[in-house]
């Protein structure tokens, strides 16, 4: 009796696992993903324009700050999402996810660009002296700008042609920069908040889990590690 039950359980769990593994990429997923990732940006732009020009309060009483932070948080979410692809592939077997990582990465860059535009144009209002002081004297701005700058080579080398030109190994090594960029992003976030570290620490925890997963894999299988990361 006991054996019989456990067999069923095993069979069932196996079939659930198989069913997950057998899940293929839904048709049009790539397009859907792109459309979905445009929505927050579209809302941010429309909301900010309306708040600034028409005096609405979609982003509350201080729309510039709120909108700026909104875009920053989406940047972090997308960076974390790019780092989730590999663990997710390994757990679910959905290798088709891999090709969407580029979409996530490029959108992360898009959001950080909007974040920077909101900061420089709407918040600091192109006060050059202030931008310079921010960059040189305020470490959290410096870290944020560094993270943004480090994303540029990744964007430039994101095309198939560039992957071929660099060669898989070198390209992989270069794109490891995203680990540093994301850490810088989370530090930038935690230094920017006034007092309540709940959200930055949540990001830090998620990063710790993602990086921990990789470390444990690399230490077990040093040969494969780098190529799947």
């Amino acid at each position: 009796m006991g054996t019989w039950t456990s067999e069923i359980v095993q069979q069932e769990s196996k079939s659930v696992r198989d069913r997950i593994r057998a899940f293929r990429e839904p048709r049009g997923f790539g397009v859907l993903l792109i459309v979905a990732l445009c929505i927050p940006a579209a809302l941010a732009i429309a909301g900010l324009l309306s708040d600034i020009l028409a005096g609405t309060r979609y982003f509350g009483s201080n729309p510039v700050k709120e909108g700026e932070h909104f875009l920053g948080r989406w940047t972090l979410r997308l960076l974390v999402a790019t780092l989730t692809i590999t663990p997710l592939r390994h757990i679910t077997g959905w290798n088709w996810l891999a090709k969407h990582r580029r979409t996530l990465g490029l959108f992360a860059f898009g959001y950080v660009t909007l974040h920077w535009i909101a900061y420089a144009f709407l918040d600091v209002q192109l006060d050059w002296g202030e931008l310079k002081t921010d960059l040189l004297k305020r470490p959290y701005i410096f870290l944020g700008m560094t993270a943004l700058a480090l994303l540029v080579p990744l964007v430039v080398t994101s095309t198939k042609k560039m992957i071929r030109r660099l060669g898989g190994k070198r390209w992989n090594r270069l794109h490891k920069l995203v680990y540093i960029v994301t850490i810088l992003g989370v530090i930038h976030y935690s230094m920017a908040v006034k007092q309540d570290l709940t959200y930055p620490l949540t990001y830090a925890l998620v990063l710790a889990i993602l990086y921990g997963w990789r470390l444990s894999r690399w230490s077990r299988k040093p040969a494969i590690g780098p190529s799947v990361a």
Partner: protein
Amino acid sequence: MLIRRAADIRPSEITSETLYWNRREWIAAAGAIGVAAMSPTSLSALGAARQQGPVARGTPYGLQPNDKPTPWEDVTNYNNFYEFGTGKDDPAQNAQEFTTRPWTVKVDGFVTKPADYQLEDFLKPHKLEDRIYRHRCVEAWSMVIPWRGFSLSEMLKRAEPTSQAKFVEFTTLLDPRRMPGQRSSVLDWPYIEGLRLDEAMHPLTLMVNGVYGRDLPNQNGAPLRLHVPWKYGFKSIKSIVRIRLVEKEPVNTWKVSQSSEYGFYANVNPEVDHPRWSQATERRIGEFLKRKTLMFNGYADQVASMYTGMDLRKNY
């Protein structure tokens, strides 16, 4: 409307401050008798969309010609009041159930007449005034707010500070059941603030129990708060339960939490930056283009003499 009128006055045209205030009062009075829609066409789209809620009335104190009261909607929904959460809109949401009666205010320390007052008794001797003040947050945003209250000095005189009293220490209610933000250790509860005795006795220092002619909403620090218009907002402590006259400089909560960024004096000063941002400019809530921050938030004529000889860079 009040606002457009004020903006029409060029600084050079203001020959006497009294005349200017008279004009403002006249306009406020006009508003009060319902001539509010006199020149709707002169309102900008932004102004129109934001002109909601009650009309601001009161005597303007230290307002600049282009200052206009911040709409009720913003004054009551954009708040730093960590006792009800750290988000700007948290207090408006989380303070709804907060009960402010009965409320006791303890006045003690170096006074000849210490007492525990019921709020009603605490307020009774005072004539309430509507005063429109500028408010500047340390986070580089600002508002113009029509408070209702009375000078703290009147209340302090009644308590009769002794010669040992050098500072006034204020304490916010400590009750994590009623103030959910206090269940987190984001600040060292209860919130404490302090003023030097001369600052506390300054006629501008206001004990506030109302805004826009109404009782103070919970999220704005009901039932009793302070407003010190020439200092950063965090000095203006909310939901006060204790006023203690002391000999030594009180240790205020934000200074405890981050002394490199928040000091005891916290006078508005465009020349002394916060370590993480400039204090030279500010964003007036409801406006897009930034404004220059004024020394002592525009109250220099009234208060600067209290700080002569002091290094304001050190005593930030």
